[in-house]
Each structure stands twice: as C-alpha cells, then as structure tokens.
C-alpha cells in the first residue's frame, strides 16, 4: 500500500466521522468541531491529489497546496463566525442548542429591525 493510499483512507475516515458528527450531534459546538474534522479530511485529500505531480519528478503538485492554504483560511473564518454566533446565542439565552428550533422556527417572530 503506497503512502498516498494510506493518506487517502485516513482522509475518508476523517470525513466519514465528521459527517456522522455533524448530522447526529445536537450540540452546535460539537457540530462545529465535527465540521472541522471533515475539513481536515478534505485537506488531507487535497494532499493526496497533490502527489500526482510527483510523477513528473516534482515533490508534489504545488497548485493543490495553494488551494489547501486558501481552504484552511476559509474553514478558519467559518469556525470563527460560527463560534461568535454561538457565544452570542449563549449570552442571549443561557444555553447553546439548536434542539428546540424545529418547533419554534415555524412561529418565529419576524421583526423590522
């Protein structure tokens, strides 16, 4: 088994675990963490794809590496935004859960501002 295959399998496992967490966990913080796990899996997958350039005598294809860095920045900002929202939610309600919203959302009060 080549190194690329091992890394590819690891990426698949990380994405799978993350997806499971995002879908089943009711707590938003855990969802955010699980999302980061998916992100790590995807970035590893980028690394695996970058190995294709190695055949041409390079250490790796540089473009996926550049894409990964951009992807990490995006995932970082997404996490920061989610955590900020979560903190505001905790300040406003004293708890941070999305559990109740399926029933309350239908009657959520629209407001002007």
């Amino acid at each position, binding site marked *: 088994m080549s190194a690329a295959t091992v890394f590819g399998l690891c990426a698949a496992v990380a*994405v799978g675990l993350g997806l499971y967490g995002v879908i089943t966990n009711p707590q938003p913080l855990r969802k955010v963490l699980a*999302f980061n796990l998916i992100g790590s899996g995807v970035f590893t997958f980028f690394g695996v794809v970058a190995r294709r350039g190695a055949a041409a005598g390079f250490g790796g294809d540089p473009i996926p590496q550049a894409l990964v860095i951009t992807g990490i920045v995006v995932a970082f*900002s997404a996490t920061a935004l989610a955590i900020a929202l979560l903190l*505001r939610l905790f300040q406003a309600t004293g708890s941070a859960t999305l559990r109740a919203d399926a029933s309350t959302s239908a009657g959520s009060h629209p*407001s002007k*501002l």
Partner: protein
Amino acid sequence: MTPDPTAVVESATTGAFLLVLSIVVPLGGALLAFAAGGRYLERVALATLPVGLAIAVAIAFTRPSTGAPLVYLLGGWAPPLGVALRADGLSVVMLVIVAVVICGIGVFACADFRTAAEEVEARAPFAFWILLLAVWGALNTVFLSGDLFTLYVALELLTFAAVPLVCLDGRAETLQAALRYLLFALLGSVLYLVGTTLLYGVYGTLDIVLLSRQVRAEPATFIAAALMTVGLLAKTALFPLHLWLPPAHAGAPAAGSAVLSALVVKGSFFIVIRLWFDVMPAVPGFAATQLLAALGAAAILFGSVVALRQERLKLLIAYSTLAQIGYLFLMFPLAFAPESEELHSGGALSGGLLQAMSHAAAKAAMFMSAGLIYAALGHDRIRGLGGIGRALPMSVLAFALGGVALIGVPPGGAYLAKELLLRSAVETEQWWWVVVIQAGGIFTSAYLVLVLVHALVPADKPVALRAHVPWYQEAAALSLALCSLLLGLVHWEAYLPVPQGTQSSVSALETLTSALWPILAGGVLAILLGRWSDWPPRIPLRGLTEAIIGRVRRNALTLVETLERADLVLRQWSAAGLSLLMLAIVLGAAMLVGR
C-alpha cells in the same frame, strides 16, 4: 494527459478592466465603510451603489456584439497557470439585475439603518451597510469567475456576508436561525470542495473553459458532479434541503430578508448553471436532469401549500421563495437535448435565468412592502391585515405587483420565462413539466390572492399606524416590482439564447387573457386551503354549493396537514442531513445509470 497549454491560451479583451472594477468597487466600498465607520458608513455605501450600477451597465455595453465573453486575465497569466474572469451573456444580465436590486434595497434601507448625526454608531447599521456591499462583491465574483476554486471562495464569501444579515437584531431565535444557516451551508460548501478536488485530481485544471474541453462521462466525474451539485443545492435551499430558509428569511429585518431571498440564493443557483451547462453539459444525462426538476416540483408543492397555511406575512413570503426556487430547477430537463444527450443552452436556459431575475426583483419588492406593513401595523398577521390597503396603498400595490409579476402575467419577465419553458417542454415532448409549470403559476396566485383579500377588506375601525412610512421606501419597493413586471419587454437576444419570435407575444393583448386564468384557479385554491377567520366566507353560498365546497375543503385540508407534518419532519436537522447524503448518492447513481 493535459493538452498542449499553448493551444488554449486566451487573451484579455478590451474593456475587461471593468470586470475587476465590478468586484473591487463593492468590496473596496465595504472596507472603506468599515474604516470610516459612524455616520460616514451610510454615505460611503450610498456613494458606492450608483458607481457599481454604472459599472454593471458599462459591462453590458462593452460586451462584444459577437457574443464572445469579456475576459480578464489576473496578473496577465492565462489559464491553466493563471485565473481568468469571464463575463458571458448570463453573467452580464445577472450583474445588471443584482446591481439594480441592490440599489433598490440600499434606498429602502436608508430609513431603517440611518445613523443620526449626534449618534455614536449602532451595531445594526454598521453591520448592514458593510454586509450589503460584501454580498454584492461576492455575487459579482460568483458571476464573473472562470475557475471552480474561485467560485468556491466567492461562494464562501457570499455565505459569510449573508449569515450575519439574518441576526442583525440579535434576538435569540434569529441567532439560532443564523447558526443553523451557517452550519448547513458549511456542510454544502465542504461537499462542493470535495467535488472540486476530485475534478482537479482527474483533469489537472479547474478553469471552466479548459475543463469543459476535457471532461468525460466517467465515474469520478459523476461523483464530483453529484457532490458539487448537492452541496450547491443545500446552499440554494432546494427542497428537501430547506431547513434553514424559512426561519432565516422570515426573521431577518426587511432589507436583510430582501437581500437573502432575492439575491443570495441566486448565487449558488448560478454556480449550478455554470457547472451543468458550461463545465459538463454532456455529463448529467437524462435521469439526473429529471431528478433535479422533480425536486423542484416537490419544492413548488410543499412551498406553496405551506405558504398558504402560514399566519404571518413574512413566513408566507419565505415559503413562497422556497416554491420559486423549485420553479428555477424546472429548466434542467427542458434544456436536455435527447439526440446529443447533453444540456443545450437554448430557450429553456434563458427561461430559467429570466425567472431568476424576475424573482430577484419581485421578491425584494414583496419583502420590502411586508416590512413596511409590519412597521406600520406593529405585526404582520395575515388575518389582521384588514384596512391596510387603505392606510398604505402604495406598499400593498408594490406587494400586489410583485406577486402578479411572479405569477407570469405579461409583460413580466416571469411571463416570458414561462413561455420559454413551455415552448421547450413542447419541443422536447415532456408534457409532465407543462403541468408543473402551470401548477406553479396557480399556486403563486393562490397565496397572492389570500394576502390581497385580507389586505383589501375594509377594517371595522380605521387602522392606527404605529409608524410613519417614508415615501422613498414605498417608491423603492414599487420600482423593483415594476422592474420585474417590465423585464419581458427588454430585448434579450443580445445576451440570452432566446429563440426568434418568443418576445413578440409579450405585448399582444390576447396573451393577457390567457394569463389570467391561473389567477382565477389560484383564487379557488386560496378559498379551499387558506386560513380564513370567518369560514364559510361572506360570499352568499346556499345549500348544496356550500355543502360541496365544505366537503372538498375538509378533504383538501387533511391532505394539506399531511404535507405540513412532512415539512416539519424534513426540517429536522438529522432528516435534512440524511437527505443531503441520500441525494448525493441518488444523483450520482442517476448520472451513472440513467443515460
């Protein structure tokens, strides 16, 4: 594996710097507004709006008459080494309509998000103006980028700018709605990213033009296409991935709802078009296009029926958006040419895009007038709207015109769209989509009639308005509604692949009568399914007629309750997450098998 790069080098066209300006000006405005702060915020934002609109119009006129796209190569590097910005006809029309709608929303928001001279800056106006410009910049990037990874970045930028618009007022339930939106959108963008990686792994480029020359119908491409499409559907809130849309769009302040509902969902929808029509027209195949439109049909049914049952105006409009998003996806099977087995950029594509444009203008107008009604009454319960037609005639007129434009009454853009879609359905012999297209119009008129009847009924006592509604807010809503209603008169041949002779029917008088029967049918539906405070209605009904109508209504309502319950289940987080995964698998399988 990769073809000779020198063979595919394209050069920048004259006037292409405008493409850069259309991205840099809104984003630069957002940065400047952030730095200036306080009461300069609004001035910076309001100064940016006309400049951005002028740039969009200039791009429309600079575009070569041959129909070739405007191309800008960033840093002078041609793909596959560099990244290109391209403006074809589709991007140009979207750029212009977004600029128009953003300007309308900007004028409208002047009243709600004003920072008075003596005031220190408040959080909501500060966030709103910056986010408005950021959404604009992100959308322009979506329309112009010629590279799948740039599209990913633009998509994320759009989501990050849109999410805080949901919770500008900081109430707990809007925070929850925003968080839900963000988390589900992130799931969607991760799927898109995985698809992009796969495509890069297989073809070694992400440039749309280069990729479209190399792409083959093989399993890796199917997986990538399915993952990317489903990720984008989650962000567009196509049924059954709509759990985040109703609370987010109904809870935001009026100007925010207008941005979210009219514009933000069109961003990811536009990328689906790019992916299916430009990158891989031959990949999806018959079954996948049918599947996509079947989801659209389900969205029309669920969205419209649940909209009819809402007690609040803003939630009704939010569910109407859900139905209209479904309508947008009807074009995919109609654009599928059976003999070449690929998606054909013809009348159906123009129809879908025109529908998206008219929905953008009309839905913004409807959310704005709903916001004005809410501000004036202090509530937006549909059953408590009596007398508002007399108190706020202009707002109600804007709402009505927006709704009429959506139903597809000539000369509206939606009418032309419907006409184009119906023609393609006849040409490709797919009668079942004709039924769905007509049903969409009937459902739209049903909830419009429901609202208008309540708004036009005279109140028992004169309505006491809680707040004064400035004239320019009503004017902004009304002009966007009119804009949507007049879109059918524009000559689209220069920008969109409109077949000859379609547009001549727009101004003919007899088309008007044929467009009126959906409104009548919609009225009947509204009577049967709507929530009425005084059932049986005041219309004098006697004996047998009343018995029959009552019986039909009872039976219809049991069906509707089932749909409402199903909607509630599908809007659970775990159900939506599972449908996301299932949909990716089914879509991939449809591409693999159904060809």
